[in-house]
């Protein structure tokens, strides 16, 4: 004979990632390192922005470059003479705290005061995975369409800074920058919304300033 039993499992599948994210943050704080992670659509300008931050600040930066299978971004960043660990997600569409943990151990943390993480280009999946950073910046560009912000509300609601990039191309693609800024402010009134053209450096100082302010506030 068999008996039937109803058994409580109460297992949160998201907890494993959250615990590792907390551990990453602890690792970083033990070494007094500030960590910012960049998310955004494919090709929105994340790597370009990271390169500009490296070239225009005096931080000792290390970078974790997420990519589905390639190493192009890691190589680009390496040419700016900073330590880089490439994180390949393989089949997955996002970085998770476990990959980031491995990456942190591949960086010379004792020599760093800032770690920058570039997530895989995706406005959807990274929402589910905290990485252990102090600050999340989402980068979109006008060329993805001026409805990008309203189409992906949650990533904008859960990020600390919103960068709307490639404003030099707005006219060419018929994108309304003011609409994108308004959509972003509507979703997250307390957030910094910064418009940028990384080809000529517009907006870069403001982005560096909000990172500095956040770093100082900790």
């Amino acid at each position, binding site marked *: *004979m*068999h*008996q*039937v*039993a*109803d*058994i*409580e*499992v*109460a*297992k*949160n*599948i*998201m907890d*494993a990632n959250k615990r590792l994210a907390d551990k990453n943050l602890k690792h970083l704080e033990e070494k007094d390192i500030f960590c910012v992670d960049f998310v955004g659509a494919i090709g929105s300008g994340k790597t370009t922005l990271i390169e500009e931050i490296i070239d225009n600040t005096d931080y000792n930066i290390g970078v974790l470059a997420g990519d589905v299978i390639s190493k192009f971004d890691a190589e680009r960043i390496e040419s700016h003479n900073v330590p880089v660990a490439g994180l390949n997600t393989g*089949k*997955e*569409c*996002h970085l998770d705290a476990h990959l980031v943990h491995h990456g942190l151990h591949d960086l010379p943390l004792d020599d760093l005061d800032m770690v920058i993480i570039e997530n895989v280009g*995706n406005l*959807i*999946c990274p*929402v*589910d995975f905290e990485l252990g950073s102090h600050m999340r910046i989402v980068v979109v560009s006008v060329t993805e369409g001026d409805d990008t912000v309203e*189409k*992906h*509300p*949650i990533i904008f*609601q*859960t990020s600390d800074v919103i960068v709307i990039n490639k404003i030099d191309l707005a006219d060419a693609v018929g994108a309304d920058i003011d609409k994108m800024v308004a959509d972003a402010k*509507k*979703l*997250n*009134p*307390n957030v910094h919304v910064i418009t940028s053209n990384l080809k000529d450096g517009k907006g870069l100082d403001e982005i560096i300033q909000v990172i500095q302010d956040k770093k100082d506030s900790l």
Partner: protein
Amino acid sequence: MHELSMAQGILNAVIDTAESNNATEVTEVTIELGRLAMINPEQLKFILGVLVENTIVQDAEIIFEEIPVEVECSQCEFHGNAILDDKDHYAPMVKCPECDSLAVEILNGRDIVVKNIVIEKPDDN
């Protein structure tokens, strides 16, 4: 979009619990799905259906319950369940039910929880 790794996590939790309770078969699995988790329940169900083959979970009924989205409004200080406007989003817009503001802090509704399982096991004697 990461239904496969989530499904694997769910199945591991189910099998761990079933085995530590000497189950011969799992007949029911109840999963709570946050409305804001970036997971499509239909895709998750499909992948779970594939992964359970040849395990003690293979004939289980999979039941999904929705975790409501709990928010705190930064405009009017409302605290409670949000209104979800998903007329043109799979990932819905989260709104305060009191003042319609989108400026809300999301407190709950992003998790995936294996809640309970129903198992069959041999009689104790």
